[in-house]
């Protein structure tokens, strides 16, 4: 018998029952929608504040410095102070910017970031919108983000902002393909695109898709990091190259919104990884004793810590390296991965093999992933040093030879 506490949302359940018995279905629908939206909004809003602190403190620790530690205990109130400062700052608008479009992107990037959380399964029967096209929905709305960032860069009427915007678009196009292909394999295995359905699949067969499809996880993790514009792939706002990229001209809370959305999107990606590959709210039976939504949030923050770790320790990739990595390594790997996954599902489902064969698949796929990564790393490291001889689209500009093309010292 699972234990029940106040944090099991039992009062909400009684409220639902009471509403269903006493009012019409429309009222139940509206109230449920409002309550759930409030829950998601407060999680996301609090998350953005907490993440600012977490990120700065953890990266500070990794880089052997202190991080914010003055405002409040352990610097916990620093995000609040930052927010107040940002709200007070003067809102600047460049004279030659596009008036209407300039103010749109900070709002526009917020919408997909919020919508992502609506399809997550926080607990059994605790899904805001259990869409049966959930995974595709996530991909579709994440493509709106890159469009909003493009509008931000273009409307600023600033060379650096436009360069950042073009980089975002180029990167989004390149990394969207391996992202989609990587998420196709879990969908093939689970036989559904609903996130709750995929979590149910993992609970039913007691196997996390991370073990079953490690290649998918590898590709998705890399592609999602790139789409997030975080440090290993933050060429869109590379401080040392193009000032601050697409948000160069944004000041005050408009910049604050971009910053918050970046953190929220990191949470969203962690949530997608947690629910698609690591069983969502389930934890091998432990979810009977710990409230599932706490397990889910714990998993989200576990993977978010991974993202912070990447950000704190990795240098930025050059743009051509990043593009070559997507097109020459991730996409072929993803295609091979889908072929392997589809064959396995065909054998398992159509020939009605027993479920223990999933264990064999885990072993096969792990070996496949190691082989694929080994093979493609050899290929790509050879190709990286044969840089393109001819610069395209900018061939009027003389580009200084890159270190890799220069003759080695002493030869």
């Amino acid at each position, binding site marked *: 018998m699972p234990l029940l506490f106040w944090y099991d949302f039992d009062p909400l359940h009684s409220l639902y029952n009471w509403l269903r018995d006493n009012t019409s279905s*429309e009222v139940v629908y509206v109230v449920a929608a409002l309550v759930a939206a409030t829950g998601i909004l407060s999680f996301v809003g609090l998350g953005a504040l907490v993440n600012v602190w977490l990120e700065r403190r953890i990266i500070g620790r990794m880089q052997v410095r202190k991080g914010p530690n003055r405002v409040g205990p352990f610097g916990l109130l620093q995000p609040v102070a930052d927010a107040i400062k940002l709200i007070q700052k003067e809102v600047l608008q460049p004279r030659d910017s596009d008036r209407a*479009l300039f103010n749109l992107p900070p709002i526009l990037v917020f919408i997909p970031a919020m919508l992502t959380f609506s399809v997550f399964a926080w607990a059994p029967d605790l899904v805001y919108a259990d*869409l*049966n*096209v959930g995974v*595709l*929905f996530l*991909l*579709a*709305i994440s*493509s*709106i983000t*890159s*469009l909003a960032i*493009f*509008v931000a860069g*273009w409307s600023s009427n600033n060379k650096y902002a*436009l360069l950042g915007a*073009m980089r975002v*678009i180029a990167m*989004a*196009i390149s990394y*969207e393909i391996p992202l989609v292909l990587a998420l196709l394999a879990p969908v093939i295995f689970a036989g*559904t*695109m609903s996130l709750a359905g995929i979590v149910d699949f993992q609970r039913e067969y007691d196997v996390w898709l991370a073990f079953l499809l490690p290649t998918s996880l590898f590709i998705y993790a890399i592609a999602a990091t790139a789409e997030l514009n975080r440090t290993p792939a933050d060429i869109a706002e590379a401080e040392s190259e193009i000032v601050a990229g697409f948000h160069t001209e944004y000041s005050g809370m408009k910049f604050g919104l971009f910053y918050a959305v970046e953190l929220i999107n990191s949470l969203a990606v962690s949530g997608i990884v947690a629910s698609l590959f690591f069983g969502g709210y389930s934890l091998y039976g432990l979810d009977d004793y710990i409230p599932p939504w706490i397990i889910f949030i714990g998993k989200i923050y576990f993977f978010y810590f991974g993202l912070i770790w990447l950000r704190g320790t990795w240098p930025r990739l050059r743009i051509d390296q990043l593009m070559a990595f997507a097109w020459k390594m991730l996409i072929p790997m993803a295609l091979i991965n889908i072929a392997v996954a589809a064959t396995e599902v065909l054998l398992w489902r159509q020939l009605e093999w027993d479920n223990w064969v999933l264990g064999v698949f885990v072993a096969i796929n792990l070996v496949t992933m190691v082989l694929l990564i080994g093979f493609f790393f050899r290929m790509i490291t050879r190709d990286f040093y044969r840089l393109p*001889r*001819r610069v*395209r*689209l900018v061939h009027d500009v003389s580009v200084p030879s890159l270190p890799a093309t220069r003759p080695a010292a002493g030869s």
Partner: protein
Amino acid sequence: MEDTAVIVAFYVLTIVTLGSALMVATVRDLVHAVLFLVLSFVGVAGLYITLSADFVAVVQVLIYVGAISVLMLFAILLTPRASRDNASVPYAAPIGVLAGLLGAVIIFVALKTDWATAPGGNKFETTAAEIGKALLDPFVIPFEVASVLLVIAMLGAILLVRPGEGGEPG
């Protein structure tokens, strides 16, 4: 109440779709035109949702809003600034007449058609699975032809940007 909600949603989405489509044709700056086109695509996706075609709606957003519009923006930004003016189209009047005639024909056909509801009503719970089965069973040949077409287009694009003999774009 559900019916009124759907009807209100239908009219709002129609106004958004048609209004932004009109703006695409009239607005001066081509980048604005593409962004209005995106809004129009989103409106169409909303209309699909009111028809409970969720898969088509999401794919509409994914492909048209996410990919096609980005390609258009790339194309616009790679053209010189002078040719980005939307207003200097010499064939505006004849094209307008043609579009008007086409619209009239479509409205005429739509009014004459007997829009009987299909028996069984909304019988697909999960449209994605049904579309997948339909693509791989009765419509497998059109599906394969479409993929061959895409491969040919991709090969053509690669051939166009391949360097020629002298190192120049071929």
